[in-house]
């Protein structure tokens, strides 16, 4: 589905020097797979996502989506960035509609789908409100179903639930998992929270920094559906410990 070969990328620092961010990075993501990318902050996770999306161009190496070289082709993926990118002048409903609108999908076709999505994440009754009138959790819900509304094959989510309180976060995780189960999408999920990564993913890609590449891949074989309490089971805790230790030995600083 998504194939990265030998990706290198350097960014130009403010003083003009070029700093290698990604070096010889290989990655292969299968269809309908839920993968997480975990790594220390500043290691280039967002850059990696932007390269996959075609928003940033790699210095060398190859990105292939379904076998075709990624050459700034858009429209195949839904993208949720770290920051709030809802359009503040559009109501909840019109924000969710933006994807189908851009793809010129007829209203009769997308309307039932959007209504179902809104209901699914519990936003019914808020359709005519503006983003400035919503709580943080509600905004994230709108953002999540906005990326799904035009039915892309792939979702690329960059720390989507980063700034939320624990309770809202768990609800949204479960929402995302059940949407993924129903819709059968390929999801690439960036997080710095190991528990979240284990909870959600089929596989976890562990990134290291300076320069970054994929250091280790973990298969998560905890049976699905996974409920919130899975994280208190012994197998989960063992796995968490193991990944944590690998993570710390890679990043070097024992925190």
């Amino acid at each position: 589905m998504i194939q990265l070969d030998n990706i290198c990328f350097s960014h130009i620092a403010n003083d003009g020097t070029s700093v290698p961010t990604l070096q010889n990075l290989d990655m292969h993501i299968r269809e309908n797979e839920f993968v997480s990318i975990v790594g220390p902050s500043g290691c280039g996770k967002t850059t990696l996502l932007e390269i996959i999306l075609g928003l940033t161009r790699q210095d060398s190496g190859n990105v292939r989506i379904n076998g075709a070289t990624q050459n700034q082709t858009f429209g195949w993926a839904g993208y949720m960035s770290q920051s709030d990118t809802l359009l503040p002048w559009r109501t909840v409903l019109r924000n969710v509609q933006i994807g189908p609108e851009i793809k010129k999908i007829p209203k009769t076709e997308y309307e039932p789908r959007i209504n179902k999505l809104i209901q699914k994440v519990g936003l019914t009754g808020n359709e005519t409100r503006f983003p400035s009138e919503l709580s943080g959790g509600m905004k994230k819900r709108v953002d999540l179903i906005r990326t799904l509304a035009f039915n892309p094959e792939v979702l690329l989510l960059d720390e989507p639930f980063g700034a939320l309180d624990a309770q809202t976060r768990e609800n949204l995780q479960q929402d995302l998992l059940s949407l993924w189960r129903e819709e059968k999408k390929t999801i690439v999920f960036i997080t710095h929270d190991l528990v979240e990564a284990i909870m959600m993913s089929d596989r976890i890609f562990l990134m290291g920094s300076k320069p970054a590449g994929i250091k280790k891949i973990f298969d998560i074989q905890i049976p699905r559906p996974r409920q919130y309490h899975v994280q208190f089971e012994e197998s989960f805790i063992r796995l968490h410990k193991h990944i944590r230790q690998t993570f710390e030995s890679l990043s070097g600083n024992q925190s």
Partner: protein
Amino acid sequence: MTLDQKILWTRISLILFGLGMWEGFCVCGIIDPYFFGQPTSICQDLWSMIIDGSIFFHTWITLFEAMAGFFLGAVFGCVAALILGMSPFWAKVLDPLIMVVYGIPRIALAPLFILWFGLGLASKIVFAFTLVFFLVFFNTFAGLKNMNQGMINTIRVMGAGRRQIMHKVILPGISPWVMAGLKSGMGMSLLGALVGEYIGGNAGLGWMINSAAGLFETNRVFSAIFALALLVMATNAVFNKIERRVLKWRPENINL
């Protein structure tokens, strides 16, 4: 009595009190109505100009010049900012030139405009235009520079082309900035029309003020100022209404 009514009546009483003091001072001879005007005489003068319609004519002239300059300045200011915003090359080339032209006190150019475009409406419209243009231009440009890159990226990833990004993200995104530019541009366009009439003209409220002051017709000056104040209030009210409609998505109360 509701609070709103209370506010209204207090306001009216304040105005009446002020006018009463003014009138009283004139009657008692504390101030000379020949230089300072007198409310009752101003009312008489206004009434006579309402009867013969001349106040409406001159107000309309000034309004027309201001609005024509305003619309031209708004459209060209917006378009110029969008073009330069989309093309960093031309933005760099033109940046110092724009700053130089902007830096020239426009009032120094007013006599030139009178020479080039005559004593009629055209010179005032051009003058108002030069004032409005830069305000709208700089505001729109600042709006473009402050666009949220993440917003554009998410929409681009969905497959939006340049036109769609322009329509669905950039134009609505800069609308608060453009509105702010238009709002100050509105005041500036009236100022431009007025100053144009001062410097050389044969109609309009600016001309009326200037010529009446030359003849020591103080009451006439105040009549024109009164008409001008009403005009500013009316245009502001209309503009605020439009602004509230366009920017109704913005949270209204911000506690500072």
